[in-house]
């Protein structure tokens, strides 16, 4: 039963998963560059991390190597920590500037 299941799953070539991750990653990059809302920028970062996770998991599955999925696990951990710190900074920025527009922060450029 398991064997037929994994044979059925092999119908999808690895290329499709890689292509999907590339598309999702580029959407995330466009989101970071285009939107001015800090929350949406954080969401785009999450989307990019997800695209990388998907690519690592698909390579791991197609190479029969569980190490890739362990790395996906670590990336998820780092993403969770990043979101916690990032949202805390967002709350602090909102308290100080009463706005979550990125352009309100252009004075930290230099």
């Amino acid at each position, binding site marked *: 039963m398991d064997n037929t299941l994994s044979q059925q799953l092999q119908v999808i070539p690895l*290329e499709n998963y890689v292509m999907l991750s590339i598309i999702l990653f580029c959407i995330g*990059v466009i989101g970071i560059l285009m939107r001015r809302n800090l929350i949406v920028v954080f969401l785009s970062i999450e989307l990019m991390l997800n695209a990388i996770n998907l690519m690592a998991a698909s390579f791991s599955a197609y*190479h*029969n190597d569980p190490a890739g999925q*362990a790395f996906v696990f*670590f990336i998820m951990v780092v993403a969770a920590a990043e979101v916690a710190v990032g949202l805390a900074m967002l709350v602090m920025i909102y308290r100080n500037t009463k706005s979550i527009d990125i352009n309100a922060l252009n004075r930290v450029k230099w």
Partner: protein
Amino acid sequence: MTQVFFYGLSALAIASSLMMLFQRNPMYSVLYLLVCFFSVAGLYIMLNAQFLAVVHIIVYAGAIMVLFLYVLMFLNLNVQQHFSKSNMLRLAAMLTGGGLFLLLFSAFYQTELVVMPDPMNENVGSVQTLGKVLFNDYLIPFELTSILFLSAMVGVVIINKKEQTNG
């Protein structure tokens, strides 16, 4: 059947992430990204990585997105705010993203991907295998992640601590 699932899930993921991008209200952006995460979890199941799918839903849908929604509601940010926007910047972002896509696509096009003879062994994504890998080969990184979480927690508390007023 498998192909229908794959293309449906990937179309859902791409469409919801695009909707996330072009949504005015950040609340809807978060909810659309949630849809995207669920379809990515479905793709993990199609890769025979059940543990990853469950952890993905728990961590992203259960923790991260709830944190986003909590901050949005807490600060009442879902009201329409005025954002500086310029069409020039938007065009530049599109061009940059499109250029990155072309670069990655050409690299992908010229690469020959190697696939093992019998991919998606039913044991690779199981909790047993991943647990053995995680606690044998990657034990020290696993312990370091706990320190990372601890430092993130301390950092969050310190960042959001109100300034003490003396006297």
